[in-house]
């Protein structure tokens, strides 16, 4: 299967990856090769097969509703790119 330039642009946009035209084209060629490999799956009849999301068929364990976390803001924000007044700063968000 081969991907189009538009396909690659769309997924780069969805994945928030800046790519110039050269990079898009290189990615398109490589992804097309990978999807050729992936296409082998289509030959298999999987009618009636339950999809497998987890290695074991187990149930979610539940946590008691008790506060266990403390305030680690100082430690966490010491490694943040930009903070002010306890807030993480990002370029202006317009709704």
């Amino acid at each position, binding site marked *: 299967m081969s991907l189009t330039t538009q396909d690659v642009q769309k997924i780069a946009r969805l994945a928030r990856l800046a790519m110039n035209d050269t990079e898009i084209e290189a990615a398109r060629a490589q992804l097309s090769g990978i999807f050729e490999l992936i296409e082998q799956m289509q030959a298999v009849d999987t009618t009636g097969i339950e999809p497998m999301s987890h290695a074991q068929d187990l149930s979610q364990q*539940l*946590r*008691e509703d008790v506060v266990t*976390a403390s305030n680690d803001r100082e430690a966490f924000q010491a490694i943040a790119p930009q903070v002010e007044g306890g807030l993480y*700063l990002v370029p*202006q*968000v317009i709704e």
Partner: protein
Amino acid sequence: MKWEIVIGLEVHTQLSTNTKIFSGASTAFGAEPNTQADAVSIALPGVLPVLNKGAVERAIKFGLAVGAHIAPRSVFARKNYFYPDLPKGYQISQMDLPVVGKGALTIQVEPLSGNAKPYEKVVRITRAHLEEDAGKSVHGAAQSMTGIDLNRAGTPLLEIVSEPDMSSAAEAVSYAKTLHSLVRWIGICDGNMQEGSFRCDVNVSVRRPGESLGTRREIKNLNSFKFMQQAIDYEVQWQIDTIENGGKVQQATILFNPDTGETRSMRSKEDAHDYRYFPDPDLLPLDISPAMIEAVHATMPELPIAKQARYTDEFGLSAYDASSLTSSREMAEFFDAGVAMVGAANAKLCANWLIGEVSAQLNRDGLDIAQCPISAAQFGAMLARIADGTISNSGAKEVFRALWSEGGDADAIIEAKGLKQVSDSGAIEKIVDEVMAANADKVAEYRSGKDKLFGFFVGAAMKASQGKANPAQLNEVLKKKLAG
């Protein structure tokens, strides 16, 4: 040209747990920014979600309250999109297999205008699913920057989705109010709309009768019933105008601006989303056993719908009164406490006072029933004095005003203000005799057929008793004596 309005609601209720849905960070409102954002809330590399039992129990409680199927197995999925208030770059939600299935909510619709009568309607609930809340953007935190506070990130939400069963703003508001009352009633949400605990997204479309559904626009994040009504009214008119002017409604996510009363499209959501849902590999399927449902069921209070049935059947109240009395659990409990003191025979008296005088006074003072300055015990004691004839209705109003502003005890107020009715038949006969003697001419006129004068005698006798005569008794005596 006639138009049909089609409305469905998606309501995000913050569940009243102590901790977040996937971590042990506190959910208390109003903390300093990011002081309740633990490693999971800020999505440090390597951290993992663990599901909060309290959130699951609350979801089950809601399901039971709307008669819904509780899924024996539900699955958490990731909804992928980038936004600064969404630290992982995906929201953990439920997609294909929600915890709560189809249910229904019966609402009493109070038309917003005109003289139309209240009516009952059943709104179908499509599903309710558990998910996590996002953080908050704080605008103007710094020059041309937005600040991100992740205290709210990870707060458990139950998103309750209705079928598009509502056909007016009044119905939508009634549904939202009933739902709001229900989630507070069963104790799964504090219902604080200012703090964002109960947020409504409203899907609106219009169509001509008989046509298929029109294109809908979704009004996001309405956090007051008044705004909801205004937003729907504006949006409906906008859609009708657009179509009538030859335009087409485009599917969109829109915001309501309470200052202008208008709706507008959200700019940041302009490119089509592709959320790439898939089952969250970090969370296993949520299995809910019959035993767990039973344990939750055992903690359920009597539901409004059951109470309403009891009020109409046992007390002979109207459906509307029963619905008013169950508008909140506090109101119903107040009523129940009142009835407990005066007996079922006087339930109607209790209902009339609560829906009438008490509600009016609460409204005037901007209070809700939980903040009522008169306790149910004080209220019941006062009703008991009306019921046993000690005070008249007008006397009771005086007692009520005193209780409201100064507090105290009904009997003491009656005593101090001398509001006790005269029910002694001898005393009443004496007053009547005196009034008749002083108005012999009018007695003659009455007896010659001028029935209208009866009111005059009631007034005069009541005045002579300084308003304390038992009205029923006074009437009876007057009638007998005037008849000669």
